[in-house]
C-alpha cells in the first residue's frame, strides 16, 4: 500500500499534442516560449498541431472523487485517456501511486490495468457477443482466473450494481441504464484501486441518470476508490465531486471544491457555468463564514459549518414570528412563517 502522502494520481506538466512528430514539436515549442505553456500552445496551434491537453497539473488523493468538467472539445476525454494510458501522452509525468506510467512498457501497463485500474465508458463499451456475466468476468478471464472463481466474483459485482437475474442476457437485450450498470460492474470486477469514469451517465435519460448517480455515490461510500470522473454537466459535477477541475480548450482553468467553483469562480468562463446553479444547494456555511469570534447579535439559530446555505437560511428564518398575508384589497387572509418560505425554495434532497 502507498503511504498516506502519496497521491493516487499525480499529473505534472502533462501534454497531449496531436499531429505528426508531436513530441519534438512540443519540445521545440516549449523551448521557444521559454516554458510558458500558453505561448507554447498558441505556437503549436499555429503550426497545425492540436494541443488537446496543455500542461495539466493536479493530484487525486487517495479515496478522493475528482471530477473533470468541461464542454465537448475541451480535452477532458483526452485527459482521462492520457491518465489511463489509452493515449501515450506527449510530455510531462503521470504518477499512479507514485509510479510514472509515461514510457512504461506494454507489459507493465497491462499488469497495472489488470491489478489497479478500472474504467467506465460513455457508450458503455460492452462486448456485444458476450453475456452480462461474461462481460463482467472478462477482466478476470484475461488474467487466467478460473471459470468458477470468476463467475463467483462476477456474481458479487453484478449484485452490487443490482443486476441479479440478468447474468445471461446479452447487452442488446438491456436498457441503457442496465447496460451502464454492466459497464460499472465490469470495471469493478478486479477490485481496482483507481476508477476512471468517462461521462458514464451522459448517454442516459435524466431520470435514470439521477438514479445511477445516487447509486454510484452509495457504491463509492462503501468502496472508497480514488476516482477520476469526467462530465460536461455542472450539476452532476457539483453533486458528486470532492474536488472539480474545470477544463477549457485543453487547459485546466480552475481546480477547487464545489463551493469554490460556485462562490469564487476564477474567471467569467467558470462563472458562466455556475450561473444557473442553485448556489444555496452546493455552498456550505464554512465558505461564507468570517472566522473568529467577531461582532455578532444575540440570536443563535444553531448553524454548523457543514450546513448548505439553504439549510442555514431556513434555520435563521425560524427566529422570526409568522407574518400576515393580504389579498388584493388589502384585507388579511392568512399568515406565513418565514421558515416555510425558505424551506419551499429548497430542492428536495434525494
Amino acid at each position, binding site marked *: 500500500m502507498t503511504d498516506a502522502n502519496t497521491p493516487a494520481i499525480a499529473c505534472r506538466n502533462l501534454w497531449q499534442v496531436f499531429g505528426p512528430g508531436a513530441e519534438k514539436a512540443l519540445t521545440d515549442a516549449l523551448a521557444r516560449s521559454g516554458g510558458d505553456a500558453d505561448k507554447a500552445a498558441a505556437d503549436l496551434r499555429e503550426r497545425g498541431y492540436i494541443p488537446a491537453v496543455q500542461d495539466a497539473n493536479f493530484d487525486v488523493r487517495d479515496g478522493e472523487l475528482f471530477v473533470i468538467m468541461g464542454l465537448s472539445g475541451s480535452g477532458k476525454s483526452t485527459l482521462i*485517456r492520457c491518465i489511463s494510458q*489509452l493515449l501515450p501522452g506527449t510530455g510531462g509525468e503521470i504518477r499512479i501511486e507514485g509510479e510514472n506510467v509515461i514510457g512504461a512498457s506494454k507489459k507493465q501497463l497491462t499488469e497495472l490495468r489488470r*491489478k489497479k485500474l478500472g474504467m467506465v*465508458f460513455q*457508450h458503455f*463499451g460492452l*462486448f456485444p457477443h458476450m453475456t452480462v456475466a461474461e462481460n463482467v468476468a*472478462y477482466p478476470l478471464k*484475461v488474467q487466467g482466473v478460473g471459470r468458477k472463481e470468476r463467475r463467483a466474483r462476477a456474481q458479487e459485482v453484478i449484485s452490487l450494481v443490482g443486476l441479479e437475474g440478468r447474468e445471461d442476457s446479452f447487452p442488446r437485450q438491456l436498457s441503457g441504464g442496465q447496460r451502464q450498470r454492466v459497464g460499472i460492474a465490469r470495471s469493478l470486477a478486479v477490485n481496482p484501486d483507481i476508477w476512471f469514469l468517462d461521462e458514464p451517465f451522459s448517454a442516459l435519460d435524466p431520470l435514470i441518470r439521477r438514479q445511477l448517480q445516487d447509486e454510484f455515490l452509495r457504491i463509492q461510500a462503501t468502496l472508497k476508490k480514488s476516482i477520476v470522473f469526467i462530465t460536461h454537466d455542472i450539476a452532476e459535477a457539483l453533486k458528486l465531486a470532492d474536488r472539480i477541475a474545470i477544463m477549457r480548450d485543453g487547459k485546466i482553468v480552475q481546480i477547487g471544491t464545489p463551493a469554490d467553483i460556485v462562490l469564487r469562480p476564477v474567471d467569467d468562463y467558470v462563472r458562466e457555468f455556475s450561473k444557473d446553479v442553485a448556489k444555496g444547494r452546493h455552498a456550505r456555511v464554512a465558505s461564507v463564514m468570517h472566522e473568529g469570534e467577531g461582532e455578532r447579535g444575540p440570536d443563535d439559530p444553531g448553524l454548523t459549518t457543514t450546513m448548505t446555505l439553504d439549510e442555514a437560511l431556513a434555520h435563521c428564518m425560524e427566529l422570526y414570528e409568522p407574518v400576515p398575508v393580504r389579498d388584493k384589497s388589502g384585507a388579511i387572509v392568512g399568515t406565513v412563517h418565514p421558515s416555510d418560505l425558505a424551506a419551499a425554495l429548497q430542492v428536495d434532497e434525494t
Partner: protein
Amino acid sequence: MSASVDVLPVQSARLTAGSWAALITLVVGAVCLALEPIAPWLVTWPAAWVLPATDWVGTGLAWFLNGIKPVARLFSDIMAYPMNWANFVLGKTPWPIVIGVVTALGWYLGGLAMASLGFFGLSFVLASGYWAESMNTLALVAVSVPVALIVGGAIGILANEIPRLKSIVQAVLDVMQTVPTFAYLTPLLLLFGFGPVVGLIASAIYAAPPMARNVMLGLERVEHEVKEAAIMSGGNRFQQLFQVEIPSAATQIMVGVNQCLMAALSMVIIAAVIGGFNDIGWEVLLTMRKAQFGESLLAGLVIVVFAVVIDRMSGVLATERQRHDTRVVWAILAFAAVFTVAFWARLPNPSELTLLDPVAQAVDQGLTDFTLTNGAWLDALKNNSMFYVLLPLRIGLDQAVLPFTWGFLWTPAMSYGLFAAGALMALLMAWRGHVTGGLTVLIAVGMLETGIANLPWPFVLTGAAALGWVAGGRRLAVLSVVLLSTILVSGLWERALLSLYLSGAAVFSCAVVGGMIGLASAVWEPVWKVVRPICDMLQTIPLFVFLIPVLMVFQIGEFSAFLAICAYAIVPMIRYTRHGLVNTPDEMMEAAISSGATEWQIMRDVRAPYAAPTILLGLNQTILYAFAMLVIAALIGTTGLGQSIYLALGQADVGLGISAGAAMAILALIADRMVQGFAEEKRKALGL
C-alpha cells in the same frame, strides 16, 4: 430570366474550372481534327512509335514465372490432395445423403425456408442430369474457399495490426478488383499447367480480396470504446484481437464469407474456359459452342441454383439468426441415411437422369420457333441498334453513315452542318449561363462525328486530364495522363478505345435506363416490389450465365455482348439511385412539404440533389461491373482489350494477357477515381 442575363458578363469574364477544362479539351480536339490531313500522327499513334512493351512484359514475366515454377508446382501437388479428396467425397457420396446434408444445413441456418430452398434446389440439380459435373464444381469451391478465407482473413488482420501496411493493402485490393478475371488465368496457366488446379488457385485469388476487405472494415468499425474496454480490462494484444475485436466484427466478417463464396463460385465457372475439367461451367461452354441452347440454359440454371443456394444460406450468417431445433437436423440426416440404405440397389445413377431433357429440348425447339417467327423484328432491333447507335458511336457518323445502312452517304458538308448546329446550341446554352454545358455539347458533337475508336490521342489525353483535374485536382490529372500514356505507347491504344466505346455505350444506357427504373422504384413502391427480386437475382447469377440468353436470341456479336454487359451492370445503378432518393432525411422532406412544395418539386429540388453522391457511387459501380463483364463478353464476340485477353489465354501469351489486363485495369481505375472524385465533391458540397 432577366436576372441571369444581367449577371452574364461577370460569368463569362470568370470561367469556372469546369469551363476551362472543357474549353481546352475542345480546342485540342478541334486542332487535331483540323490538322488531320497534314499530320495523321495526331489522330492515330504511328506503329513505328510503339514500344514492344507487351513483349517485354511477356519475357519478364515468363522469366519470373519460370523462376517460381518449382514452388508453384509443389503447391499444386499439395493442393491436389484436398482436391482429390473433396472430389472423391462429393462424387462418391450417394446423392440422397448430399441432398440430406444440404437440407439439414439449410434448416440449421435458416429454418424451413432455407431447408426447402436447399432441398428443391439440389433436387433440380439432380433432375437435370448434371449431378456429377455439379459435384466437381462444388469440390473446387469447397477447396478454394477455405484457402481464400484463411489468406483473406490473414491479410485483413495483418493490415489492421500494421497501420503502415494498411494503405498498401487497400491499394492492392483496389487494383485486384479492377484487373479482369481472365487476366489472372494466363500466368496461372503457365505456372500450373492445364488442369483444375488453375481454376482452384484462380478462384482462391479472386475470392480472397472480398474477405480481406470485410475483415479490415469489420475490425475498423468495432466501436472505439469496445476496443478501449478490452485494453482497460488488461488483455494483451492477442486477447484483445481474438476475444473481443474479431467476435465483435463477426457480422461484417460473415458478409465477407458470403462474398468470398460467391466470388469463388463465379471464378470456378469462368475458369472452365481453360477446360480440362468436367465441371458445370465447361458444360455450359460446350453446349453453347454446339448451339444447344436448351441444354446450355439448363446447365446455366444449375449454376444459378447453386449460386442462389450458397448466397442465401451464407447470407443468413451475416444477419442475426434465431436458433433452430437441432433435433430436426438429426432427423433429416437420419432420414437421408435410411433412404439411401433402403433404396441402395435402386438408386438411379444421377448422371443418367434425364428428367429435364424434354424440357431442354422443348426450350431449344421453342427458341428456334421463336427466332424463326420473330426473326424479322429481332434482326431489325439488332441491326437498327447497331447501325444507328453503336456503329456511329464506334467509328463516327462520317464513316458509319453509308447508303447501305442510312440510305445516303455522309459528306464533309454534313460534318460542317453538324458542327454548326452544335456550335449554335453551345452558344445558346452559354447565353443562358451554362458555359460548361455548352462546351460539353460541342465536344459531344465532335466525338459523335469522329467516333470513339477514331478519337485523336492528344484529345483523349487532354480530355482525361481535364476531367481528372475537375474531379480530383492536379494529382488525378497527372495520374490519368501517365497511366493512359503507357497504354498509348504499348500499342494497345486502339483496342483500349474499342473497349472504352463498348463499355461507355453500355454504361450510358445503364445510367439512363437504370436511373429511370431507380427513380420509378423510389416514387412508386409496387415497381420496387417487382424490380427488387430481379436485381437480387441478377446480382447472384455468375457473370458467365448472362451470356446464354442473349446468345440464344441474338447470336454472336457486339450487340449480344452489349446486352449482356447492360444486364449485369445495370443493377447497381438501379439500387443506388433508389437508395439515394428514398433515404432523404425525414426532416428535410418535412421541411419541403411544409414549404408547400409539390411532389415533383421535392424530387427535383430536395431529393435528387441530396441523392446525387449516392447515385454517382452507383454509376461508379456500374462502370466497374461493365468492365468486368466486358472481358467475359469477349467469349461471344467483342473486339478490344477483352478479346486480346481471351486470345492471350488461348495462346498462353502472358505478355499480351497481362498487358491487356493491366490496360483494362487502368481504364477502370481512372474511371473509378474520377467518378469517386465527383461524388466526393458533391458530398462535400452537401456537407456530408
